[in-house]
Every structure is written in C-alpha cells, then in structure tokens.
C-alpha cells in the first residue's frame, strides 16, 4: 500500500473508462473469500459433518424414490406363523412375487410405481432384513417409513422458517415494549408441556372408527403436521429475535439508518444475510427433535395409523414382538439402527454447521 502522504488526491470523481476497467479487472483478480465460502470450506474439511451430509442426502433421495426401488410392497402380507429372520442378499437375491399393493398413493407415487413395474417387472428384493409377524418385508417398510419422518422434518423446517424467522425478525425490528410482549407470548407457549397438549388434542379429535365420519374429519396425520408446525417455530423465534436485536444495534445498521435507509431495506440488505447462519444452525438442531417426537407418538399408537408405516411404528412392533421365548432381534435392531443413524447424522451435521458458521474463528496469531 503506497505511503499516504505521497499520494496526491485526484480531483473530481469521473474516472476515464479505460482506468475503470483496469481497476475492475484488478479487483476481480484479488477477489476475497466471503464468510460463506469460508464456512463452506470449513464444513467440507470437517469429515464427520461432511459424511453425515452425504448420508442424509442419500437417505432423502432413497425415500423420495422409494416407489421406484425394486422393493416388495410395505403392506403386502404373506401370512406366516412367525417373523422370518433376515436372509443374506446373496442367498436369496430376488423373488418374483411382487404385487403392487399400496395405500392410496398420490399421482406421483402411483406413476413411479407404474414405472417401476415396467422397469423391474415382478422382480422384488428378498427379505434381506427379515419380515415381521404378518410377513411384511422390513427393509421396504423402513424405506417407506423414512418418508414420514422426512416429510415431518420438512414441515417443521418450513413452519419454523416461515413463522419463526418472520416473528423473530419482526420482534427484533420492533424492539421496545412490542418486542417484549411478543416474546412473553413465546415464553408462555414454551412453558406448556407440549406433548401432553398434543395428546390431549388427539384424544378430543379422536376420529371414530367408521370411515363415513372420518372423511370430513381431520386425520391424525394432519393433526401431527399441525402440532409439529405449531411447536417448533418458538425456539426459532427466540433465537432470531436475539440476533436481529443485536444486529439492529450494530454500527453498520446505524450507518445505513443515518443514510436514510428505510427499515425494510435494512432488513433485506443487512439483517437477512447476517441472520442466516443462526437460522441454519437452529434448523439443524430442530430436525432431530421432530423425528423423535413423531417416533414417540407413533410408538404410542397415536401418530401414524397403519396401514401407513413409520419408524416409530416399526420400533413399536419390534418391542411388542419381544418375548422371553423367541427373540426376534432383527425387528428391534434394524429400526433402532435406521433411526439412530439418521439422528446421529443430523447431530453431527448440526455440530459441524455450528463450528463452520461461527465467525469468531478468525482469531489472529497469539
């Protein structure tokens, strides 16, 4: 950097075009690395978090393309006296008795099942992970079961992003008495023992058995989605409000206000990009809690109703099958492994994200 006093200040502002292009080219060459790319590079270098990200991506893909995979139908019963232990893939790779028995699939799934039938014909994978008492294949039920958890996690993510972030940002921007009032509401809602209230609502909205009435009545799955949506934006709102309030006090926002920028513009130009890391970390912390919540309700028989399937139900069946005489270990082990690995991946990813995104990491030399 040339010493200051020898540089003569240039009069006026207009820089000739040629000089400008020269400077812009130099600027592009000496391009700095933004905080976001720093964070991305750090995330990739954190092997545990990176591998869990890949694993989760694979899981989501597999569960989305479940109808396309050559798996037996998750609800096709083959009545047997007892659950069949897992058969190693090379012993019984495939068998021919695929029957497309599914519950009321919506258009996309139905189309995929049709495509799968053309592709694999009646081919379906053998009982690699064994079957349950009604002979339904455990592997296919695990894959189809993961759909529920992922959909719920998505629902929680969306609601906490939509409600939580906007509510928190609004409170942060408003500041003063309105902010403390809005936060008081969140505190009260947080203090409720949330699971019991949901159970209680489920009891009251208990759909009667016969189908006639249940048609116009809200199904338990919808209650689950609404419950998840209603609960998980609270912590997000709190976290976002704290961050936005801090940003509003920061000097670069004050400078923008001094320049006459309106609040909305400040929100878009300065607040949103700086609040994203906090939102991302909080999101990564929310997902495991949602999956656990669904598993708990399904385990109690209050979440997903058969014939649909979810990891909670599988775990429930596994435990019910436990008896001192015969130990069907696979009915317990594989659901535990599936849920455990997914949640472990989410936890590791959350840890990795938090490490990568906190900007304190720019410590100078001692």
């Amino acid at each position, binding site marked *: 950097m040339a010493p200051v006093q020898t540089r003569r200040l240039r009069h006026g502002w207009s820089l000739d075009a040629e000089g400008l292009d020269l400077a812009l080219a130099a600027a592009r060459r000496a391009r700095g690395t933004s905080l976001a790319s720093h964070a991305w590079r750090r995330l990739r270098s954190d092997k545990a978090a990176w591998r869990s990200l890949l694993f989760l991506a694979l899981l989501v893909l597999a569960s989305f393309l479940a109808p396309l995979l050559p798996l037996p139908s998750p609800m096709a019963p083959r009545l047997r006296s007892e659950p069949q232990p897992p058969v190693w893939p090379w012993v019984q790779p495939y068998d021919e008795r695929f029957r497309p028995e599914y519950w009321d699939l919506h258009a996309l799934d139905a189309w995929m099942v049709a495509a799968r039938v053309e592709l694999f014909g009646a081919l379906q994978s053998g009982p690699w992970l064994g079957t349950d008492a009604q002979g339904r294949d455990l592997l296919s039920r695990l894959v189809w079961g993961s759909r529920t958890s992922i959909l719920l996690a998505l629902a929680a993510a969306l609601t906490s992003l939509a409600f939580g972030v906007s509510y928190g940002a609004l409170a942060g921007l408003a500041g003063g008495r309105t902010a403390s009032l809005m*936060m*008081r509401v969140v*505190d*009260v809602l947080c*203090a*409720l*023992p*949330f*699971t*019991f*209230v949901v*159970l*209680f*609502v*489920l*009891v*009251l*909205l*208990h759909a*009667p*058995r016969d189908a006639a*009435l249940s048609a116009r*009545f809200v199904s338990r799955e919808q209650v689950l989605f609404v419950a998840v949506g209603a609960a998980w934006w609270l912590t997000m709102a709190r976290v976002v409000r704290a961050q936005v309030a801090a940003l509003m006090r920061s000097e670069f926002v004050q400078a923008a206000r001094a320049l006459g920028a309106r609040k909305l513009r400040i929100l878009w130009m300065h607040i949103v990009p700086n609040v994203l890391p906090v939102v991302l970390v909080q999101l990564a912390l929310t997902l*495991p809690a949602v999956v*656990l919540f669904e*598993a*708990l309700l399904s*385990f*109690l*028989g*209050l979440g997903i109703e058969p014939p649909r399937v979810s990891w909670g139900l599988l*775990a*429930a069946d*596994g*435990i019910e099958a*436990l008896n*001192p005489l015969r*130990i069907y*270990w696979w009915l*317990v082990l594989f*659901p*535990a492994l599936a*849920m*455990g690995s997914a*949640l*472990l991946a989410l*936890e590791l990813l959350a840890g990795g994200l938090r490490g990568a995104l906190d900007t304190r990491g720019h410590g100078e030399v001692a």
Partner: protein
Amino acid sequence: MRRFLLRRLLWLALTVWALITLSFCLMRAGPGGPSSSERLAPALEADGAALYHLDWPLWRRYFHYLGPLNLDERGLFGDRSRLLGGALCGDLGPSLRQRDFRVDQILAQSLPVSIELSLLALLGAIAVGLPAGILAGLVPRSRADVLLRTLAMLGTVLPNFVIAALLLLVLALWLRVLPVAGYGSARHLVLPAIALGAPFAACIARLARAGLLEALARDHIRTAIAFGLPPWRIVVGHALQSACLPVVSYLGPAAAGVLTGSLVIERIFAIPGAGSQLVGSALAGDYTLALGVTLVYTLLVYTLNTLVDLFYPLLDPRIALEEP
C-alpha cells in the same frame, strides 16, 4: 419476588382455564362428544344424558363443568349440600372407560407411581450426567473424554424406547438379570429408570462438559492461574459453579421431557403410572381422564419450571429475578 410468583401463577391459571375450556368445547362440538358418539354403550347413553345435563342451557353446563361452584340440584340452585364441584376442584367426572372410577381416584392411585419413576430417572440422570460431563471437560481429547462423548451422543440420538428395547434385549431377555416388566419391588424400576433417564443424562453430560470448557477459557481463570492458585482450587472454586449454570437452566425442560418419556416407558414396562393411563385414555377416547392427567402434568411442569427459575439467581448473582 412476589411480583414474579404472581405473574407465574397468573399464566398458570390462564393455561389451566384454556385447557379446560378447550376440552369442554371440543367435547361438545366434536362428533366424538357425548351427545352423538355412537361408541358409548346405550346404557351409558341414558346415564350420560343425565350426567351431562343435556337439557341445561350451554352457559350453565359450561360453568358447572368448569366452575368451582356446583350448579346442579345439589349445588348452588339446589339444596347446597355439595356447593363445590367442577374441574377446578378436581372433580373431572367419571372416566369413560373405567366407568366405576372417578378421574381423581384413578389419578390418586396412578400418579405416585409415575412421579416415583420420573424422579428416579431425573435424579439418576443428574447423578450420572453431571460428574461424567465434568470429568470429560477436565481431560479434553483424552480417551475418557472421547468415550464419554460418544456415549452422550448415542444417548441423545437414540429415542428412549429404542434404548429400552436394547436394554430389554440384553439385560432382561438374554442375561435375565432384571425383570422384563411390571411394577413391584425396586428391581422392577431399575431398567425403566435407566431407559427413561439415559437421554437426559447424555444431554446433561454434554452441557456440563461444554460449560466447563467455556468456563475454563474465561478471563478470570487466567487471572487465577497468574496468581498461582493450584489447579484443583481453580476448577472447584471458579469453573465448576459457572459450568453448572447451563445444566440448572436445562432442568426445567428436562423435567417436562422426563414426564413425556415416562408415557412410553410405562407402556413398555407395563408400569401402572399416570402416563400409561393417559395413553390408554387417548387410545380409547376417554377425554375426561386425558384432561385430568394433562392438567396434573401441566401443573407439575409449571411448578418445576418456576422452582428452577427461583433457584437460578442463587447460583448466578447477576441475574435479577424479574427477567423471565
């Protein structure tokens, strides 16, 4: 102090009122309600009608159901033999499923079991989690630390019923060390308490470890070192207390979590606690019992949260009581 307690009480009253009113409306309006549910046996139909005063105007039915005052013929408008009644006095009517028991009777019998189990699990979680976290924090990146952290990771990642299943598989069925289920002697509570407490022990361990590491990195620790204080005095005198702060503030949500977990554990280990009653009533649509259990648990969680908030300023003088 008084203003703080008053505010907490106010919010509790509001929540309880909201719950009761919610149940009253949903019971009346929803098709599952007494007036049109086909599931109730015809005998109960007549009894239900009499019981629920379907002939009264709506407001009277509501206040009879809610209010501290009893509004039927033996109450305010009658011979006043039983003036008090209604949900606020614990009279939640009969349980629909177990018709010969009133809700408060069922609660009185099943609640102590749940509280005993939950308390055991929570205290166990603290007794195991806190020292483990502190130990892991003292020897960062050593083998003990890595082992404890992986255990803690598993604890938080696996849902409690999966842990219960694995414990059952190994301890009860395979090694036959502990009874599979049921409630009786203390040995029956060991497995359920471990399964219920494990996730919280793991969480407390992680919080304690992070708290200790963060406390040891603080400025005043460097001052203490510069004054030649021996390591044990620095850790015990300065780091431990601030390491426990995050754990204490986690106790409130942990208590709510333990109660939630007990629903599952009581069902797996067939323990006749209030949790299993709630699950049973949920499956059977017995809303009066469900309301009873929910109210009691809400009360429990609220008092626990308030206790933690009262206890916190004692540990950290900087926090004034007024902050929520």
